């Protein structure tokens, strides 16, 4: 490949020596996290769980595979079980019409228009009733994830245990019609959980803050053999001797990949660097294909720009690309929480990112990374980091500590335990007058 490069998994697999290290075949246990966090932190988690032993927890969402929520539950539920909580995870069912409605809910809660007829709300409730008839809600703590199962909540006098709605999406600018429909159900819960104060709504129930998290032992984040990192660079013909700027994200206009190319072009006037834009979304998404074409056009024939349209099973390659990077960029125009930032920080990389969504929670400007507000600003911050490697290194190190304290899966388990303990204490206080 001589100029702007796009490679698929099929192409990657066609090359010799391209086989990635073997995928994980077993679930991680708490003991596995000792290597990352130390024995004291894990012993502390066990101490927190001590008073909750035997307590029943029910997690309910809309899918067991695919998507961030299922990925998180696949990791959190086994860890809670290991802590001797009786956790069951249940998935709601529905026809295509139900999921078409919930998809429209999802998009409109992110601010898009809701174009379905009023009957869609009744259809949503019919499926909710079907699921209520199928599922049993008898746990001490019931956690309902996202809008799809939100209306399952039972009215207060009739229900058992504590009910919490965990909202994983940004509700800061919801479509009013959909929110007006959902809000009365949400208000029936004992509490709601949001990923950022920015994403929360004014509600009559307490709202708690749980940050999303990454798993340090997952394929995307675990330590890699330097030989494998070198092999991945070699496979994509990226030069490890020259600075590598990387943005990992879908080919989506909101991630502003063209803006990243423009920022790189400014930096390139001063530094002989390379740009890697790696992500997915172009193969099965017409808009993704359009964006990919726009990015290629912006990149022109620059041989130092590598545009990699990777399939969803490329976690190890993404891990390797992040580890090989000199600077990681996340120049989103809008963002949910933006966990790719935490992924970069966990690898001790200096990150330049836009101050949108949950990114300022992860990037404390000049402490754990640098925030930027424009293409020129992004270019300036990258140049600053390339000129000051010692500062870049310090930001990366502090960034890793920030992730360690706040954005790892163990912190997520800890937050759930703390919330359950809080509910238990509150119930006892009520019982004792």
């Amino acid at each position, binding site marked *: 490949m001589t100029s702007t490069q796009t490679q698929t998994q099929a192409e990657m697999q066609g090359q010799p020596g391209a086989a990635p290290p073997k995928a994980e075949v077993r679930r991680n246990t708490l003991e596995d996290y000792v290597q990352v966090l130390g024995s004291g932190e894990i012993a502390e988690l066990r101490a927190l769980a001590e008073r909750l032993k035997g307590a029943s927890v029910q997690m309910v969402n809309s899918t067991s595979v695919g998507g961030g929520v299922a990925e998180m539950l696949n990791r959190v539920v086994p860890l809670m079980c290991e802590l001797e909580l009786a956790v069951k995870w249940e998935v709601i069912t529905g026809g295509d019409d139900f999921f078409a409605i919930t998809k429209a809910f999802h998009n409109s809660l992110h601010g898009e228009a809701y174009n379905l007829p009023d009957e869609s709300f009744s259809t949503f409730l019919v499926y909710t009733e079907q699921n209520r008839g199928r599922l049993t809600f008898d746990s001490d703590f019931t956690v309902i994830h996202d809008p799809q199962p939100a209306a399952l909540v039972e009215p207060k006098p009739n229900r058992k245990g504590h009910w919490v709605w965990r909202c994983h999406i940004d509700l800061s600018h919801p479509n009013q019609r959909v929110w007006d429909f959902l809000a009365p159900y949400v208000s029936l819960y004992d509490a709601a959980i949001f990923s950022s104060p920015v994403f929360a709504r004014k509600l009559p129930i307490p*709202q708690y803050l749980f940050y999303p998290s990454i798993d340090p032992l997952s394929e995307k984040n675990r330590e890699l053999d330097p030989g494998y990192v070198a092999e991945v660079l070699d496979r994509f013909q990226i030069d490890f001797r020259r600075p590598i700027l990387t943005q990992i994200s879908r080919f989506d206009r909101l991630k502003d990949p063209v803006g990243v190319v423009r920022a790189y072009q400014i930096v390139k006037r001063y530094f002989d660097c390379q740009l890697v834009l790696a992500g997915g979304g172009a193969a099965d998404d017409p808009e993704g294909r359009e964006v990919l074409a726009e990015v290629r056009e912006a990149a022109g024939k620059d041989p130092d720009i590598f545009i990699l349209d990777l399939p969803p099973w490329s976690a190890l390659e993404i891990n390797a690309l992040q580890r090989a990077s000199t600077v990681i960029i996340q120049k989103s125009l809008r963002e949910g929480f933006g966990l790719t930032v935490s992924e970069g920080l966990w690898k001790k990389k200096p990150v330049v990112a836009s101050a949108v969504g949950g990114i300022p929670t992860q990037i*404390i*400007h000049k402490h754990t990374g640098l925030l930027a507000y424009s293409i020129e600003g992004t270019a300036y911050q990258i140049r600053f980091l390339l000129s000051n490697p010692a500062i870049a290194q310090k930001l990366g190190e*502090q960034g890793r500590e920030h992730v360690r304290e706040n954005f790892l899966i163990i912190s997520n388990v800890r*937050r759930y335990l*703390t919330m359950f303990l809080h509910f238990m204490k509150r119930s006892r206080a009520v019982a004792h007058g």
Partner: protein
Amino acid sequence: MRASEPFQFETASYLIQIGNYEATCLSDLQKGVQQCSDGSIFYHTFQSLGRYHFLTEGFSNEFAQWVLASCNRPMLAEQLASVDIRDYVSLADLRNELLRVLSGYSVANPREAVQGAFEPFFFCETLEEEVPLQLKAWTLEEFRDCIEQLPHASLQFHFITSRLRLHLRTNDFSFWLVKELGQKNLARQIDQIDIYTNTLDSARERILQLVKGELGQ
């Protein structure tokens, strides 16, 4: 020497509750600091120092950080950052000091006080859950062994937030070392460790160094 009462190590975990108030300028911040709960003052000062313990330069509390990063007022940020939580044994006193600094600025700079910030400041508060750890020390040797394996939250609980429980300008470790083992000098040296310029890990290392020195190691 063996203590008559052991040091029972505990830890605290915090549930963060999102408040219903956000500040979009310095004047709002002042109003928020005046009206928010003690749990909120705690969250943005004592607890933020623990959450960001790994930052040892230029970070003191979230009020100061917001004033610098979102309002671009370095002088006021410096004043807020200089409010040393070790000087306060009650959240009411700490709140009054923050208000004194903020209102002083607003009076002297009324126009700047109402200028919009880049990002709003969201008031949050913490709900604390304390639990005992399986760690207990009767002697200085056992104390050293426990400190070596103490999780960050427990170290913060005993070393930083203890002032609010004891209502004394000291920490749990120093208090116990004097009361139970008569170690006045060691207690004083531990209390002098600067929590603003140390991470929790480097503070732990310093404590261990001092204890080992006392043990002749």
